[in-house]
Each structure stands twice: as C-alpha cells, then as structure tokens.
C-alpha cells in the first residue's frame, strides 16, 4: 500500500454522505470509482484524513429520462454508459466519448460523476458536459442546487463544488432531430489522457441548404479546464469553411507546453481535429 492513512466511511444513504462531508469539510474527499483519486493518494500527491465512499449509496447510480433530459446518476460507471442503448440513442456524444476514457478495466470502476467532479482538463466527460450544456446536480446539508456546465469548471482538478458538497447527477439534453456529434482526440496510446481532444454537437437547419441551427465545440487537453471555442462556433453558424473554423478554434485556445507536447503542436492538432470532428458531425446531422 502506498497511500497515507485515512479513515474510510461507507455510507449507504445520501443523507449520511452529506452529514459526513459537513462534519469533516476539507479533511474529507468523496471516493467514487477511485480511478483518479486512488493513484493520487498512492503517489501522495494528495492526502485526506477521511474518504467518503459513495459506491454503496442507494439511488446514486442509474440512468433515467425526464422531460427532454437524460439524467445520469453520479456513480453510474463508464461501462454502463458505454453499453446502455438508451444512452446511445438519447445522448450519442456521451456514449461515443466514453470508450475514450482510460482502459476497459478503468471504465469498469470509473464513474461519470467522479470524472466530472475530478475535472481533469484532459478528460472527455467534462468537455462533453460543456459542449451539451449539461446541468450538474449538487447536494449538501445546506440543500440542493444546480450548476450549468459552463459555470462548473474552475481550473485543473478544481470545480465550484464546496468541500461539503457532492455531485449527485448530471443531466444531458436529449438529442434534437437532425443533429450530429463527433469525438476526436490524439493521445499517445488508446486510453491515455488526450494531448488534444475535441467534442462537437451540431444541429442542421430545418430547410434545405447548408445552414446550421446550432453548433457547440468543446476542446480538452488545451488548458486548465475544457473550453468552448465560441468564436469558432459563431464562424461556423455564419457559414465559414471548416478550415476557417479550425483555424479560429486553434487561435482562441491557449494551450501550454509540457513534456507530452508543445503548445504550438497542440494548437496545430486542435485545428485539424476540429475540422475532422465537425466534418463528421455535420454529415450525420444532414442525414437526419
């Protein structure tokens, strides 16, 4: 074993989770799938006196539809998202992004809520939530609140969640008619964190012609948080070519140099991936 000592709590009801988090605050961390937290504990990048394990909490996992939304409970595992036909049908981008998360052994344990709350800037699910304007459902002893995806991510591994709060679920809008989705990423090996990744969602206009009604483009691995390429989105809606849109996206991100890739390389790859992703998504949207 490598982690520093901690006390494990295995509550079975959400109220107990909230009480534990209220009691221990900063000294406690929520343990979901553990596929990011446990390595960080093992490497002693972080330590907590208390781990509040939410894996046994009743009702925290599961997928349901409600009025135009697909609600995914926080402890729903990646493998469930990957396999569940209603996810493919209702929120195709979520289903298609999930196989890019880690390896299948990791996806057997990792959870959607964990991936979103962990907020790794190179992770897929935060970008999917951002592109689709998902809604985060958050609870604490102070009550429940909802946070729009665009307000949720603050920086590397940082979100607006307070120490006493827990993410209980994420609501994704169910796909519109004539919409298309695509995921593109470049990683050293399948399952590694992306050097650069793009997820996009577009909706084709109702009439004939090339017009798009909606375009959403989120990039990951290019900054402290996933980012919406809003200038590129606007350019696309105004009829710019995919090449121009790719360039616009590359120009509005601010990637960093690190040992995996230079900023210049990331910018270049981002532009190309945006073109590829949009090309496929637009084709799918026009097929209806």
């Amino acid at each position, binding site marked *: 074993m490598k982690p520093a*000592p901690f006390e*494990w709590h295995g509550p079975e009801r959400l109220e107990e989770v909230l009480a534990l988090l209220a009691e221990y605050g900063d000294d406690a961390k929520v343990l979901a799938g553990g596929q990011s937290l*446990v390595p960080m504990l*093992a490497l002693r990048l972080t330590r907590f006196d208390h781990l509040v*394990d939410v894996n046994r909490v009743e009702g925290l996992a599961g997928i349901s539809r409600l009025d135009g939304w697909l609600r995914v409970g926080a402890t729903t595992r990646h*493998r469930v998202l990957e396999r569940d036909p209603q996810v493919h049908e209702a929120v195709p981008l979520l289903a298609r992004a999930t196989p890019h998360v880690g390896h299948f052994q990791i996806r*057997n344990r990792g959870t959607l809520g964990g991936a979103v709350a962990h907020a790794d800037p190179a992770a897929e699910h935060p970008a999917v939530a951002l592109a689709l304007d998902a809604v985060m459902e958050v609870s604490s002893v102070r009550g429940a609140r909802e946070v729009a995806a665009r307000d949720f991510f603050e920086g590397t591994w940082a979100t607006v969640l307070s120490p006493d709060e827990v993410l209980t679920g994420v609501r994704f809008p169910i796909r519109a008619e004539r919409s298309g989705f695509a995921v593109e990423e470049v990683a050293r*090996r399948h*399952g590694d964190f992306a050097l650069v990744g793009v997820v996009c969602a577009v909706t084709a206009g109702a009439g004939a012609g090339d017009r798009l009604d909606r375009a959403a483009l989120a990039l990951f691995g290019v900054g402290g948080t996933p980012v919406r390429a809003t200038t590129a989105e606007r350019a696309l809606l105004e009829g710019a070519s995919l090449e121009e849109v790719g360039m616009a996206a590359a120009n509005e991100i601010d990637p960093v140099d690190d040992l995996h890739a230079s900023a210049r390389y990331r910018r270049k790859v981002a532009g190309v991936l945006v073109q590829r992703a949009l090309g496929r998504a637009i084709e799918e949207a026009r097929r209806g």
Partner: protein
Amino acid sequence: MAERTIELTVNGEARTVVVEDRTTLADALREQCHLTGTHLGCEHGVCGACTVLLDGEAVRSCLLFAVQAAGSEVTTIEGLSPADGSLTTVQEAFRECHGLQCGFCTPGFVVSVTAFLAENPTPTDEEIREALSGNLCRCTGYQGIIKAVRLAAERLQPANAT
C-alpha cells in the same frame, strides 16, 4: 492504525481478512489470502499486473481498497484455472504463442483477456489491441500476446469446443 475485519469471497471460497482502511485489495489478496499470483507493478493503476475480476468484471486491484470489496466476489489468476492445475484456453494460448517471457505481467494479461473474450468472443485485431492497452509488458513487444488472444478466441468458439 485501526483495523477492520471484512468478509469477501475469493475464488469461490469465503474469506475473512483483517485490514487497515488504506490496504488495497491487491495487498489483502497477496498478504492475507497468500494469493501471490496477483502481481504488483506500479501500484497506481498504470501497469495492469494486479488485474482481478470483481463480481466478474476486470478491475485493477491496486485501485480498490480491500474494505470496498467487502461482500464481493473476487477471482484472481489462481481462480481461473481448474483445480487439477491444468491451464485454461487463454493460458495455453499464451504458452504456445510466446505471449510471455519473464511472466511478471502475465497474470494481469490473462485475467484481462479472459474477461475481454467473455464479452467479445470474436474480436477484430483492432479490438484486441485496444483491450490489451491497459496492461504493460516490458519483454514481449506484445506481438506474441496479440497472437495468443487470437488463438484463444478461435479455440473458444463454440464450433471448436472439444
């Protein structure tokens, strides 16, 4: 450090282990159950050597605390093969195709491949490579391992059952 007593099923047998909260499932299996076939390489989720089946699904036992496995059914490499010590189809294929050299990573590969083929009995080469991407091998260069998975898949087809 406070310890807890937990009960779980390992390779079909009910076991009681006494662990610290921070004890990983891998450590509990090796040190308390004396099942040292589960190897520990990196102990932080990268190498896959410690892969076991938790309620039938392949997981990294170094990323799971033993307390979390209470009440679950764990299958280790020791639990895959028949009691008479003969090899499983996957193990046999690894042997024939030179799917191992030093053998350190092998238990993790065999457990991962067993789970993978149970879910996808007719994989493409692309799918095989993807399925193997979560396990590291420093000796073979992977080609023998890929061949072994192909051979095992072929032999596990119902039409080829003996």
